[in-house]
Structure formats: structure tokens, C-alpha cells
């Protein structure tokens, strides 16, 4: 038994960390955050160049052929840098095609997604926080009509994987017409959302969609949890840095035990989440019996911890922490996204309860 990531995985994370530091330090994150589209094609290109757009897509389709654990490690690192852009939705769309698509669909789409020739996204949510496959209502019979909410980068995505009635999945090419997008005024400006209205849009059903949709949801939960761990760790680091620089009463505020203990309490919640996320991702890859429930618990736990850590980090910064100027707000809003997207913690804790037979 060995519970640790491999040397290759450490190298992967190191490479991604370097990329984030070089291409998109927080100052650049802020520019994109403030910008209109929330998307920087140059930055996206640099991710594509190192193969991240196809991290979990098999090599035969031009991807890196890695597993969800690797994808989660990438998400963790991107989350740590609050990296803006379509990575999350794009990765899920690729997994949906891979797990639910026909050979033909895989051949058509996976190489394009892996090479970054197409941006993918997922349209799951419907009115009333209906994120789960069993809650989807859109009928897909060659064409698709109806509304989907909170679609990541719905207005720039080329390929949209839509959740349909009976927990199925369908592919819609945005350029095919019949898709209207309405930007959502979202809090997290590093991951933009659009509401979509399909009006007779041409669609293709994924033949194994019903079997895949739960798995795709679970993968999404794990990637959000990993992003949340990365973000929470960044918050903690910011709070510690601030405590070691800001002076009051003639000393750095880290001298005050009140601050020290708040930071220690944050740390004991944040640090273990890393290992929980690894486990959830590993279970997705290797322990199918435990995977669904673990994904639910992990998403609920990791995103709750991130949210609370972001709140504590604002507090630890005093007045400056409460400003738009302070970068903590960017992390705070990522925490809001991670927490609510695919369903709030309470939703997944209840699912975990049901799955345990409680």
C-alpha cells in the first residue's frame, strides 16, 4: 500500500506551477478578472501547448493519456493560481465524450479537444439548482430545445455537452445555430458563466450518455474539490505572508496569538483536504465501488473548507482584505464558484447519506 503521488505526478504539478507563475501571476489574473470575456486566448494557448487541454484524453486521440488523479493534480495547481479560463468545463466535456461517446464521436471530437482546436463545455444546471442527472429535463431527439443555466464559457465554447432527460448526454455544436447565450453576472470572474437557450439546436446523442453522466458529474465534483484545495492553500499562504509583514503595536501581527491560532486552525482544516482529494480521484480511477460517494463527500468537504478559509483570510487582512484591490477577493469568489457549481455542500452530503444507506 502506498498513498503518495508519483515522481511523474510531482513533475507534472511542478510544470503546471511554473506555467502559472510565468504566464499568469496574480497581477495578470486580476486583469483577466476585470476584463470583459474572462478568457485570455494566449494563456489558453500556453496550456494547450503543454498538453493540458487533453490531460485525461487517451493518447490515441492526441491526449496525454493520464488519469483523473493527474487531472485533479492539475486542477489543484490551477486553483492555487486562481487561473482564469475554460479549463474546467473543457476537461469535463472531454471526459463526457470519452466515457459516453461512440467511436465516431470520439474520433471526431477528442483530438480537437485535446489539441485545443475546439473549446468544450458542459450544460448541466436547470432552473432550481437542478444539477444532477436525474433532475435534467431537456428532450433530445435530433434537436434540442429548452434552457440550461450556468454553462462555463458557454458563449465561446465550440462544443457543448448537454445533460438531457433521463440522465443522458447530447452534443451540441454552438456554430450549428439554435443556441442563444446570455452572460451571467457571476461573482467568480475567473470562470465565466452563460445561460443557454436552445431553440431547435441540432444535437447528437452520446450512446453511452446515461451510463457516463454520473461519472462525469463525479469527475466534476472531484476537480472542483481539487481546485478548492489549491485555492484554500493559496488563501492560507496569503494570510501567513500578511501576518509576517503587517505590523501593529510595533510587531508583525503574527506575534499575536489570536492571529497565530486562527491561522493554525485554518491550516489543520486546509492541509488534510489535499489528501482527501487525492483519494477521491484515485477512487474514481481505481476503486469504482467507493467512487461516487467519496466524490460527493469530498466536494462538500473541500469546498466548505475553501469557503471558510477564504472568509478567515479576508478577516486576517483587516480593512485591506475587504477591498476590491486585495487579491483575496479573487480567491474568495473562486470559493463561491467551487461551492455552488454542481450543487452546494448540503446537496452532496445528503447524496452521501443516501448512498451510505442512512
Amino acid at each position: 500500500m502506498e498513498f503518495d503521488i508519483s515522481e511523474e505526478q510531482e513533475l507534472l504539478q511542478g510544470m503546471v506551477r511554473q506555467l502559472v507563475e510565468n504566464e499568469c501571476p496574480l497581477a495578470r489574473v486580476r486583469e483577466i478578472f476585470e476584463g470583459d470575456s474572462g478568457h485570455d486566448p494566449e494563456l489558453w494557448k500556453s496550456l494547450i501547448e503543454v498538453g493540458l487541454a487533453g490531460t485525461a484524453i487517451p493518447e490515441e486521440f492526441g491526449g496525454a493519456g493520464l488519469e483523473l488523479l493527474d487531472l485533479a493534480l492539475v486542477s489543484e495547481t490551477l486553483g492555487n493560481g486562481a487561473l482564469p479560463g475554460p479549463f474546467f468545463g473543457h476537461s469535463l466535456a472531454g471526459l463526457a465524450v470519452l466515457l459516453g461517446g461512440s467511436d465516431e464521436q470520439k474520433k471526431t471530437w477528442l483530438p480537437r479537444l485535446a489539441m485545443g482546436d475546439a473549446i468544450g463545455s458542459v450544460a448541466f444546471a436547470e432552473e432550481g439548482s437542478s444539477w444532477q442527472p436525474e433532475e435534467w429535463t431537456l428532450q433530445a431527439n435530433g434537436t434540442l430545445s429548452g434552457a440550461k443555466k450556468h454553462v462555463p464559457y458557454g458563449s465561446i465554447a465550440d462544443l457543448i455537452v448537454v445533460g438531457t432527460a433521463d440522465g443522458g448526454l447530447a452534443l451540441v455544436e454552438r456554430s450549428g445555430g439554435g443556441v442563444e447565450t446570455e452572460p451571467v453576472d457571476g461573482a467568480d470572474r475567473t470562470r465565466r458563466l452563460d445561460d443557454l437557450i436552445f431553440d431547435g439546436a441540432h444535437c447528437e446523442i452520446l450512446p453511452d450518455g446515461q451510463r457516463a453522466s454520473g461519472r462525469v458529474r463525479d469527475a466534476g465534483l472531484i476537480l472542483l474539490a481539487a481546485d478548492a484545495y489549491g485555492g484554500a492553500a493559496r488563501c492560507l499562504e496569503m494570510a501567513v505572508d500578511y501576518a509576517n509583514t503587517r505590523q501593529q503595536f510595533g510587531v508583525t501581527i503574527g506575534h499575536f496569538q489570536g492571529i497565530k491560532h486562527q491561522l493554525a486552525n485554518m491550516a489543520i482544516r486546509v492541509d488534510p483536504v489535499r489528501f482527501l482529494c487525492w483519494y477521491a480521484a484515485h477512487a474514481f480511477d481505481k476503486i469504482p465501488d467507493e467512487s461516487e460517494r467519496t466524490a460527493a463527500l469530498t466536494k462538500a468537504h473541500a469546498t466548505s473548507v475553501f469557503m471558510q478559509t477564504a472568509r478567515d483570510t479576508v478577516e486576517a487582512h483587516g480593512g485591506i482584505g475587504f477591498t476590491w484591490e486585495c487579491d483575496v477577493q479573487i480567491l474568495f469568489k473562486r470559493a463561491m464558484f467551487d461551492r455552488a457549481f454542481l450543487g452546494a455542500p448540503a446537496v452532496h452530503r445528503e447524496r452521501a447519506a443516501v448512498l451510505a444507506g442512512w
Partner: protein
Amino acid sequence: MDLSYGEEYEEFRREVQAFLAESWPPRGDEAQLPQNEQIDRFRERGVEAGYLSRSIPRKYGGSEQEADSSKAAVIGEEFRRAGAPMDLLGGGVSLLVPTLLERGEEWQKEKFIKPTIRGHIRWCQGYSEPGSGSDLASLQTKGELVGDEWLINGQKIWTTGAQFADYCFCLVRTEPEQPKHAGISYLLIDMHQPGVEVRPLKQMTGNSGFNEVFFTDARTPRDWIVGKRGEGWLVSRTTLKHERSGLINVGQATSQLPALVDLARRSTRNGRPAIEDPEIRQKLAEVEGFMLANEYSLRYRATKDIKGQDPGRIQLMAKLIRSDIGQEVAKLGMELIGDDGLLAGGAASEMGRPDGPQDNGAWVTTYMGSLAGAIAAGSSNIQRNIIGERGLGLPRDAAAQRGK
């Protein structure tokens, strides 16, 4: 990353099962022996077979096995399933023995280790004093070398199990002219002598787990010292190294969950089974999230230890995480027992960790007992200082600096 045991370990599991089928519960004549005798014989065989006292050298009564957390996990699972006696816990085995292994004289190891791990002699830990708790290094119990003996005078307090102990491993001030930390020695003291008086203290749970211990010209031989004179503080810290015997109990961090779920199933809340109550379901799942995160932190740590790599600051957090979760479990238990929360309580694990279903009275005791984890062996605030300073790199506590 590989959480499966693999064929090698399944083979090992079959060996352990065969051993247990043969040895526990005892059969024939042996089944007629008094229980402690049965357990003693079983432990002897468990050591011979390489399943017990795995981190302790053969010559001191252990089975000297290579650290292997998978094997340890398999042994734990199978022994628990069979209800067989495991390695003893408690201060003697978990604190003194590792310290002796690291710093003891050869004769000390030979004399003390085997009977300690077999439970033939029992120890208490004489560290805390009325005036020295968190600031342990301020301790005042005096040790004076008179001829070939140390003469010990002073008082210890909160000494768990002193009323049953044969010996005490004790921190004593032997070099009064030295600065605080440098004036302490680590002495071993026979509790069965006229100079030692033990007075049990009644705990809030109603039980008497800990005691006051008075030393009045108590004696111990000159060479019953571990490490050199004045090194006692350092000697008492060496213990930590030995925790890394790869004996992390897989599943230990989630072991309290079944007890809670059991309680929720048989309790009523708002007129229906508590397990159906949305708030309870949320709380159970929330607590489980913390437990799972801790479980995998421990497994990571065990993996790093076995590879001889530094697990990093997560290792500083284990105690606080564990006692925090223990308190959450206890509070949820209290929530579930309803009106039985008016009652005085009943027998339960003193440190408040229910590892299996227990009755409502025991949950009351758990509710109180879980606080012990936040106080004993370095209070939660002291843990936060350690995490903040050594883990996060924040400045040292001003008061602690001055006391240096």
C-alpha cells in the same frame, strides 16, 4: 498511489487468519486458564509469529519486523475481527519503550522492555506538576544524588494510572543551577516504596483515572537515569521519532463513525428515527468529511515515513485534528441521545473515543471524556502554537522565548 493490498498481502492475510484460527480464542486446557494468562500466552505466540511488537528488536522481546503499513493494516483488521488481543497501549509501551530504545542503556532495555510490552509491569508518566503544565520545563520536583541513589522530593499531578503502576518515568530537576530546560533529568522510579504516596483524583466523569503522586525522600538507584544528567528534556522528546514504526492503523481516523451511525439509527428526533432527520444526516456527512481527510493524511504520513521522506507540517497537526474531531463526534452523540443527556453517564473509554456501538450512558461519558484529548499531552492551544510557529513559520511566542 496504490491502496490495494495486492496478492502478496492477501497471502499474508491468509497466514494471519490461519494463525488466529489456531490461537484465539484459546482451546482445550488453555481455555481454563485465567484470562490474563490466556492473553499472555497469546501475545507470546503473536510475537513469535511476527504479528505483535513489530518495531521492537527480538532481543528485547519484540518480533523485529520491517516497517510495513500494509502488513500492519492486515494484522489490525484480522486481529480485530477475531477479537484477539493486540499490542498494549498506554504510556509504558508508547512513550517509555521508544525512549529506552533510542536513549536507554543496554541493561535498561533488557530489564524493562520485554515485561512492559507484555504487560507484566505497568508504568505511569510523571511529568505534570501543580505549577507546571503547559510550561512543563518549569517543573520543580527535586532529585538529589546522595551516594548511589537519587533522593526525590516533590509532587506530580494528573498522573494517569499511578494507582496501578509499578514504575514511573519521571522528569525531575537535578541541576537546579542550570537554566530551566537544562536542569532536568529523566529518572525511572519504583512506585512500590514508602517514599511514594498516590492519591487518586476524582475526574468530572466520576472515575479516577489520574492521581496526585507525592515523593517524600523517594529513592531510585543512581543508574536508573535515561540519558545523562540534565538531558531529561531532550530525552523526553526523542519519543516522537519512534512513532514512525509504520504502525498507522488503517481506518483509525474513521473508526468512530459506525458508533455515531448506530446511535442515529436507534435514536428518535422530531418524532422519527434520527437517521432520517435532514440535520443529522448533514452533520454525519460533515463529520465523515473531516474523518476521511484525516484518514488519508495519516496514510500519506505513513507512506512518507516508510520511504524515509519528510511528510512535512501535516505531522504537527495530527493531535489537534484528532481531538477536534473527537469533540465533534461527542457533541453529535450528545445531540442524539436526547433526554439521556440529563443523566450522569456510564462506563466508556476515558479518552472519549467510541470505537464501536455504545449505550447512551457511555455517550455522556464520551461527551466529557472527549475534552481530555484537548488538554492532555499538550493542550490544543499549545498545539496551535506549535503548528503556527514550526508549521507556518510565524514568530515564537514571546512568553515562551523569555522562559528559555
